[in-house]
């Protein structure tokens, strides 16, 4: 079964609005990462947040992590049409080797 589950599965917003996507996971983690995928091919890394961090920013992206709730959120502010893509969270479990497990993704559509 997937370690991470994103919600919503799909999100449609107007350009300029903010988009929030959530990710829940099941086991203790070492870190959580967010990725973006265009056109169903390779994924591009967006941001990594460690288990001892609570919030991280990168440009228009803001990621929060709540380890007590085993959840994370990705906020994209002032969205653009070019942000249209699928967004995935991925977790690396703590202990032992690092195995990165992906969620099912959120499809974001930003309407110009």
């Amino acid at each position, binding site marked *: 079964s*997937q370690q991470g589950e994103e919600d919503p599965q799909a999100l449609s917003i107007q350009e300029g609005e903010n988009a929030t996507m959530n990710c829940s996971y099941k086991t203790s983690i*070492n*870190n959580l*990462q967010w*990725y973006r995928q265009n056109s*169903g*091919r*390779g*994924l*591009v*890394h967006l941001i*990594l947040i*460690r288990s001892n961090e609570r919030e991280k920013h990168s440009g228009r992206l803001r990621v929060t992590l709540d380890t007590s709730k085993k959840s994370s959120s990705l906020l994209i502010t002032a969205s653009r049409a070019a942000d249209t893509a699928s967004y*995935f969270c*991925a977790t*690396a479990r703590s202990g032992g*080797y*690092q*195995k*990165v*497990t*992906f*969620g*099912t*993704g959120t499809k974001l559509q930003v309407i110009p």
Partner: protein
Amino acid sequence: GAGVSQSPSNKVTEKGKDVELRCDPISGHTALYWYRQSLGQGLEFLIYFQGNSAPDKSGLPSDRFSAERTGGSVSTLTIQRTQQEDSAVYLCAVSGSQNTEAFFGQGTRLTVV
């Protein structure tokens, strides 16, 4: 991205034939992953390599699937006696160590007809 090359980019094969997919990453990344993504779906973990060994093969769907890695670098995923349900994009990713990002190739789109 970041020097992970997958070949072929696209592969159409007849049902029952064997296929070999290749992942050629830049050096220095000890961890290598294979994932499968069916149309419109999430990423399905297949296998993880640490160096040349595979401590986790739990995602391989059946014994028709196998993978190897040599020299801590190039990896091949082999699918024997392909079936139509094997049609998907197969993605390879590498990472250096814990707390580092994974770099993905552009994937191989496999179509079994």
